[in-house]
Each structure stands twice: as C-alpha cells, then as structure tokens.
C-alpha cells in the first residue's frame, strides 16, 4: 500500500512532465518516453507482484491520458505483463540490478517488448494507430538508452525509499 501511494503521484508527475515538456521538444526521430522509462525501471527494482500491479496502474493512466486516443485497458494489459516479466528478470539479477548499465539495457529491452506487444495486440484487435511501429520505436529506444543512465540514480533512490530500505543495502 505504501509503495502504491508513493508510486502513483510520481507516475502522475512523470506523465504531466511527458505531456507538458518532453513531447513539445522537437527531438530527432521521436520523443523519448520518460513515463515508460520510469515505470519499467521501477518495475525492474520491485517484486513481481507489485510490478504487475504498478504496470497495470501505469498502463491505465496512459490509457486515460487525455492525449491518448487508444482503447482503455490496452496499455494496462501490455504494461502489467511487461512489468511482471521485467521484475522477474530483476529478481534473477538481484546482485547487479542496481548497476546503471544493467538497468539501461533492461529498460531499453523492456521498452522494445512493450512497443512490440502494443503493436501486435493493436493488430490483433484491429485498433488503429496514428504512428506506425517503425516510425516510433527506433527513436524511443535511442532516447531511452541515452536517458535511462541519467535517470537511474534518482529512480533507484525513489524506489528503495518507497520500499522502505536504505539505498546502500539494497
């Protein structure tokens, strides 16, 4: 409960930051998704059960984002599954999950899987997309690989604070 209460406002702030600032900067290729980076990195540091719930809540938030035009529940489905898988991987790599390189590689990979899963499920349910997978993915992944190392110390601190454990012992 403590973790959910702590995570929800951070997710809201990240989404607002994404809408009001990041998406308005003319990045080459495509704009980075700060929101997805934070959600996936956070899931990597959590236990699978909470990661799935956190992914579901984040996905629902993304579905209900006023700038979103997709089906409600679509991102919730994708992020619940991907966050669970990311967390399982984090559990396996417990000793090195806090290393920035591990976090960057995992988050970028999870982002790719999220976008692929979203595109595949869109195709399965015949949901229309305004931008194609090839137009979106390379830019989002590039920026994710560049931005995640910068954000990782902050995300690790916030995640461990929410979990109630010291960052040095994590």
């Amino acid at each position: 409960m403590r973790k959910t209460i702590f995570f929800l406002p951070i997710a809201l702030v990240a989404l607002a930051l994404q809408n009001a600032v990041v998406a308005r900067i003319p990045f080459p290729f495509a704009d980075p998704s700060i929101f997805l980076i934070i959600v996936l990195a956070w899931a990597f540091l959590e236990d699978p059960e909470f990661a799935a719930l956190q992914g579901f809540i984040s996905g629902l938030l993304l579905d209900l984002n006023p700038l979103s035009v997709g089906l409600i529940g679509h991102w919730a489905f994708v992020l619940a599954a991907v966050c669970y898988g990311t967390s399982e991987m984090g559990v396996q790599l417990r000793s090195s999950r806090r290393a920035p390189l591990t976090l960057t590689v995992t988050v970028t990979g999870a982002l790719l899987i999220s976008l692929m899963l979203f595109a595949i499920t869109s195709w399965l349910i015949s949901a229309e997309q305004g931008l194609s997978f090839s137009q979106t993915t390379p830019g989002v992944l590039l920026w994710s690989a560049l931005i995640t190392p910068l954000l990782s110390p902050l995300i690790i601190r916030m995640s461990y604070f929410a979990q109630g454990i010291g960052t040095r012992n994590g």
Partner: protein
Amino acid sequence: MATPDKSRSRFFLIALLVTALIIVTLDLRGSVPGQTFRGITNTVLAPFQSFFRFFYDPISNFISEASNLGRSADKINELEERNAKLEEELSRFKVAKRELEQLKDVLDLAAAGRYMSVPARVIAAGSAAGFSRTIELDVGTRDGVATDMTVISGAGLVGRVISVSENTSIALLLDDETFKAGIRMEASGILGVISGTGNSQLSLTLFDSSSELSAGNRMVARGSSDSRPFVPGVPVGTITSVDQNSGTLTKTALVKPFVNLNSLEVVAVVTGKVRVNPRDSLLPPAPKPTPTPTVTVYITPTPEPSPTQSKKVN
C-alpha cells in the same frame, strides 16, 4: 515447481491481465465512458502540467531567442550581464509578438472564410510512444468547443477536435495515420480524400483515375454536412508528387500541408456552421513561375554575289 509466492504472483498477474482485457472489451463495445474518465485524468494532470510549463516556457523561449541572435558568445555574455532584465523582457515581447502574429493570421483566415471561431493555445502534445499525433488546446466546452470541430491555423487545416473537457480539448492532427478528410482541388473542383501518413506529407486519393494532377496543384477542405467535422474552403496543401501508375481505379499523390504541424502555438477551433462556402478564396496567392531565360538569335542572310555582278567586276 513454482513456490507458493510465485504461484500467487502469477495468479495475480493473470487476474490483472483478464481485468485489462475486460476493460478493453467493454471499451470496444462502447460501454466505458472513456471521455469522462479522460476528463478526470485531465483535471488531475492539469495543475502538474501548468507547473512544468511555468518553468519550461521561459527556458524554451530563451533558448529560441539566443539561437536567433547570431552573435558571438562573448558578445552574448556581455549583453547578458549588462541587460539580463532587458533581454528577458525583449524575449517575452518577441514571443508575445510571434503569438500575436499567429493569432492575427488565424483570425484573418477565419474572418476571410466567415468562420465563427475560438482562438486557442497549444498547451501539450501527444507522445510518439502513444502511437498518435494529437495536441491539447486550452479551450473546452466552456468556450463552445465540441467534438468533431475543425481546427485551423493561419496557414490552413490543422486537424479536428476528438475530445473535449470543460477547459481543454484534444485535436487529432492531419498527419496522424487515422486522419481522413475530403478535399476539393483548386479551380478544377475534383474531389478526393487526404489521409495522414505519420510523416510530413499527406496521401491524396482521387476517385477518378482519369483526373489530371500535377505537382503544385493545391487543394482546400471539401466541407462536411453541418460543417462538422470539416468546414469548407480551408487550405489543406500542395501536391508534391503524383503516382503515375496507370490501370488503377483511383489516382494517388503526395501532398505537403500548408501548416507546419511541429511548431503550432496558436490555432483556432471553428465553432459555428459555415453558411457561405469560400471555395478557393482562402488559398494563399499562387507562387509565380520562375521565368525561363530565352535566347533569341536573329540571322541576317548575307547577299551572295550574282553572276552578272561578277562579270561586271571582272
């Protein structure tokens, strides 16, 4: 074999996935009041977004102005030290002037087309990771905005409103792949449909494959019944290339929109019904063709000496 904890977390995941699928199914069937929920999210997000804009806008304006100065770094530093306050005021003034010019352009277009419109600022843009091209405007139902209204800028068509809350609205941009609008070619009046491609160019389809098309041809919105979602006569774009493949029932071409969709700041939403179709009158003046230099050579035949003259000489 999975531990009890693992089994429990897997069961929990499956429960969440099933819940998500139920929500998707309900939304597909139209049983979820999506716009109401998105309106609530918008209300929650609005204070955070305003907070970020408060810091981001001055920084963005300053960077924009600094890059336009085109002077040496030393000179800029000197000016910054001496005139920090003055530059800030100047920056604000220039931004205000730019916005005023955009507002004037869009109001001029609306006035020329006799469109009843509400000016609006672009306050947020949809992320590419959301697989859509949308913008958020600072006008809503309070200002008379409703879904399926045309959004224009000073240069022409921007998109259409797809959802509205009390104070804000979301518009789908015309380069989104799901965007479609009926158009009418300038002068010839040939009808067709443009659709977004996710790129900077639009795709044009004409129903009559025998229609004559060429690069440089321009088009306006055809208009919908009751002027929603599109009012007639709004400039759309210029053809840049025509698909010359014959043997198809339709004719296709690529179109460059008049509006730069990546630098929208001030737009207008057409809220009223259009009574008089402005036809082609809102199109910008056609570019004058570059004169091709022609070389004229005058040849004057040299008179050949006649035999009689030759004899006389000899």
